[in-house]
């Protein structure tokens, strides 16, 4: 789990790189970190290219992160979902809640241009 601010294109966008698994064991860590990241920005891109597995508690955490970002007038966009992770998102209907992009840079650009997906 890595966090960096991308301001190359203007607005501060928090890019979170998720790797490995997001599950019951480490989702609290993500939840807590997200609260501190919210101090810096409310616009997020979760780069999931290295994310191999997500379970329902991980999913719940990401959805709650989205809710918090929206509460702060921001957004949380997902990028580079592996087919397996996107199957879990579709299964649980979570895919309907997020804007999903094929890669992180497209997700970042969408904040600038305002395009949706």
């Amino acid at each position: 789990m890595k966090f960096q601010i991308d301001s190359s294109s203007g607005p501060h966008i928090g890019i979170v790189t998720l790797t490995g698994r997001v599950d019951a064991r480490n989702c609290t860590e993500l939840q807590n970190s997200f609260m501190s990241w919210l101090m810096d920005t409310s616009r997020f891109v979760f780069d999931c290219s290295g994310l191999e597995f997500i379970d329902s508690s991980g999913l719940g955490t990401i959805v709650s992160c989205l809710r918090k970002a929206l509460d702060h007038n921001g957004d949380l966009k997902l990028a580079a979902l592996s087919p397996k992770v996107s199957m879990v998102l579709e299964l649980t209907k979570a895919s309907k809640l997020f804007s999903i992009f094929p890669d992180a840079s497209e997700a970042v650009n969408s904040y600038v241009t305002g395009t949706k997906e």
Partner: protein
Amino acid sequence: MKTLIVIREKDYGWMSSFFPGVHPLVVPICNKPFIEFLLDFAILAGSTAVRIVSDGSLNSVEAYCETGDRWGIELGYGSIRQNDSDETVMEKNRLFCSEDRVLVINGFIFIRYADKAGLKSFFAETSSGSLSRCSSGSIELTGIPEDVSAAPGTLPFSLTDLHSIDSYYRLNAEILTDYPSPYVLPGYSNEPDCHMGRNVVISKGAEVIKPVVIGNNVQIMKGAIVGPSAVIGSNVIVDRESTVSRSIVLDNTYIGEQLDIVGRIASGNTLVDPETAFLVSMEDPHLLAGMNKAARRQGLVLIRYLAHAAIALLLILLLILPYLFFRILLSVTAKWQTRAVTFYGANEGKSFTSALPSISCGGTTCSLFTRLSLDRFPMFFHVLAGKIGVIGSFPLEVKESGHGETEIFSGYRPAVFSYAEAEDWPADAGESAIVERYYAVHGTPAQDIVLTVKAFLNRMHPGEQE
């Protein structure tokens, strides 16, 4: 006529990653094991004896088909080796093949036909040789025809390759929409485009959209949508507000609440996207899970009874003094009454009546009474009598209006404590049903003991949890 079915590991090996531990010949297509399609075809073609030969293990195929008695044919099995040519295969089975005409079904192929009646005469009259071929197999005839004078022109059947999970998925869909009737498993109710097995419970507010095939012992819960184009195996629960369409759900699968299964194959805890062949194994039993068949086995009934009776006895011994104390205390002040309540029993039509104490007092006395579960004390004796469990479903009261009967599901096992109480699940009937159903299929006697203790403690500290 006889039929020789030749099936090699190289043709079906791809199946093992999607259906681990299941022989491809018994993998179901529209709920009917693949081998039955082949046997049906062999029988329609006029065969009285069939031999299945493979370079892989046929153990589970044999366990399923046995000697072929069920189909009224003589069924045998044989072994070949990996690199055997088709010619060698024929030599190894020479005695089987010598006397008669032999139809050789070679490869992992599905045979499609529309006209059942014409097959027999076709195979009797057609001259020997290769009849049809596709990339994963072929159909051939050997031996002398009975009568070639009326040699028919066009083939009354066609072959479909089974070479990828996508081809398996599409075959299911095609059979479902285009040719259901010749292939449906006997015993299914046959409404057009809607074939259902025994003991299918479709809850109020659930929707079934044709075409569908649904197996035995299936529960489709409130608000769930099944179909169009869904194949649901046996022993499947589609829980509340979930959607299963353009999908295949294999036997013994639990599908959790509020899920979308669209264009997928679900089997136990795995989910497959047939198009990309990606497979996800869920670790979360509340999403997708395999159903524990062992828990339903007869052998466990006794063990379960013993576990439940033991814990009931323990609780009786623990609670008898407080119970008597309350009883005497409250009887003196005329606040003790009993009310006979009749509940639905676990078996259909059976019910049991328990004289439950109803106390009319407020405050701490009353709360202590329920906290110690003394309000259910007389029910423990029903556990000893084997009528109910110590943990299971909320017992449903038999009412004059007949209300409640619709709520009874096949896994309903009334008990003193409910799984919902153990899991501290919302007490609303619809909500608690999820947990109860989940454990009805997954519970083990050991788990039951732990959950009973949990339920007992949860009742002791109401409202202290989140």
